[in-house]
């Protein structure tokens, strides 16, 4: 178990390093980073000074090293617009995104689990035929359209929910539904696939041979086994939630890191964009690490991996 944890930790550290590397080279190969790091109306002298100051005239490898050292200290540069450390801005906005993402995940899971299981158990029956279009629609519905439609119907037309801003559960509902609908489709699909596979496993036949009822077979035997692979998808869904948050927060004026990203992009505040991406990548990696460790707790086969020798 200890070896398992250490192994996963090392992998996460490596991924983090990889993210920094990819971001560094993406930005540096893409163009002149100074142009991105100075306000738009800077003079050529200003740019040259900053270039020297930031060491951008030094060899790329040197710069890469400095970038890594700075990143390790949580230094992602300064926001031009707000004149604050970029990471600090991201951190103050982050709790709002967590709130939204949690709402979205609750919405997605509470529908995806029943939809996934029912469409697997009633494969080929009318229930499945009724549920599969729901999944297809959820998967194909662009967040920025469904969000606008929801506002149109529930905020503009019926005045049931506020159309923008944060505050209380009522304000959370529309953005959560918007953000969660894509995850809903993905997770429901995954659950359906996993249940279909496990319903045909031999241990299910054994349970039936014992005289177990259909619900007992499903809940006591299939559920835990079939849900394991879904955990992995949940970890990966954090990427969709963080990416989708950019759109959902923009539509609902939700003051999280997604809205921050759009604002930073529009005001060409590049250090903040970079900080958001690196921060989100870190969160994503940590979420997947958490899922891996959770696996170790839930699956006895992994728990004993280290002890067997």
């Amino acid at each position, binding site marked *: 178990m200890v070896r398992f944890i250490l192994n996963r930790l090392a992998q996460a550290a490596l991924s983090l390093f990889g993210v920094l590397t990819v971001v560094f080279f993406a930005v540096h190969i893409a163009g002149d980073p100074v142009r991105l790091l100075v306000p738009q109306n800077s003079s050529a002298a200003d740019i040259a000074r900053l270039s020297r100051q930031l060491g951008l005239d030094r060899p790329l490898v040197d710069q890469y090293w400095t970038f890594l050292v700075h990143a390790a200290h949580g230094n992602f540069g300064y926001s031009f617009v707000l004149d604050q450390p970029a990471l600090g801005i991201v951190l103050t906005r982050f709790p709002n995104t967590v709130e939204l993402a949690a709402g979205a995940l609750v919405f997605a899971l509470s529908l995806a689990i029943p939809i996934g299981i029912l469409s697997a158990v009633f494969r080929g029956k009318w229930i499945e035929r009724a549920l599969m279009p729901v999944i297809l629609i959820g998967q194909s519905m662009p967040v920025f359209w469904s969000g606008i439609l929801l506002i149109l119907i529930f905020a503009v037309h019926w005045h049931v929910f506020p159309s923008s801003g944060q505050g209380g559960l009522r304000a959370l509902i529309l953005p959560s539904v918007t953000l969660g609908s894509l995850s809903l489709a993905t997770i429901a699909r995954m659950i359906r696939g996993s249940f279909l596979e496990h319903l045909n*496993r*031999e*241990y299910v*036949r*054994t*349970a*039936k*041979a*014992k*005289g*177990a*009822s*259909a619900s*007992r077979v499903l809940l*006591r*035997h299939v559920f*835990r*086994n079939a849900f394991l692979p879904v955990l992995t998808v949940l970890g990966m869904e954090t990427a969709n939630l963080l990416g989708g948050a950019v759109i959902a927060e923009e539509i609902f004026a939700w003051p999280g890191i997604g809205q921050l990203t759009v604002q930073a992009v529009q005001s060409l505040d590049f250090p903040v964009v970079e900080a958001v991406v690196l921060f989100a990548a870190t969160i994503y990696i940590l979420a997947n690490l958490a899922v891996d460790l959770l696996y170790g707790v*839930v*699956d*006895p*086969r992994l728990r*004993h991996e280290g002890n067997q020798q």
Partner: protein
Amino acid sequence: MTLGTVRPTTAPLLEMDDLSVCVEIKGQQELALSRVSLSINRGEIVGIVGESGCGKTMMALSIMGLLGENSKIVRGSIRLEGEEISSLAPRGLRRYRGRRMSMIFQEPMVALNPLMRVGRQVKEVLTIHRIGSRSDRRRRVAELFNQVGLSGSVIRARQYPHELSGGMRQRVMIAMALAAEPALLIADEPTTALDATVQAQILDLLLEIRDRLGTSVLFVTHDMGVIAEVADRVVVMYAGQVVEVAPVNALFARPMHPYTGGLLQSITGPLSVAKGQDLPTIPGRVPSLGDIPSGCPFAPRCLAAQDRCIEERPELGEVEPEHTVACWFPLAAPVKSEAGGSSSIKSDAP
């Protein structure tokens, strides 16, 4: 629970009568079991033998009511202790499964729930059928583990399947199958996936259980050697039909069906047969569903086949007491193992 009137103990425990099972393959209904009849007495071990694809497992599953969604019983009846079970709704059938009849499977590696401690899996049978109090159940599980030869039962019960060897897992399966003291135990190739020493131990265990508890066993295998060791009576199946039924000694001494003869030669000959391979003594393979000939299903592979075998299907008929065979030209004389090769079948045929 109404199990009907008390029946005399001489009545068969299980009576399968004229059972046909259809499988749907690519929208086509194919007959997988054709008018199979069989009975098992109390305390008797009946062996079902045949190559893979002969319908042995299909028959076992139809008794348990565990046929897949694409297969269904289209004709005939199955009675357990005098009660008709083939037409029961799932709810009614559940009272029998695990309690009056239970089943162990070929692959102990995958037949157990990987995320549940084995003790709990055994105990679940008692929970489902509401047998005993909570502490009774715990004691019973320990007792069962001892009974099937799993030493250190308390520790074993707390282990997960992946921590046990194949043989131990099959013992757990047997413990599970015996938990509610069923009258009938169906064993579907229970030793095929195990190595030879473990195989012998498991067979001994099954014999011991029959002797001690009087459990009837339906033993499905493709291995004539195993049949010789455990069975009292043997049913030979081919292409979804019963082709020969006889007490084990009579069958080995005087096989009547050419197919039985071939199966026997395959164990007495120099080569033992690996799983899924052609029998060296019988050329060709079992016909797949939908390709079963309209005459005697074995005719294309039979060295003694004549015109009549291809045109007309033989019915089961008694050739000597307790010995029935479905063949127009049954082998008359006993097959000697020394008699070389398959030519003996030909020369023995009339």
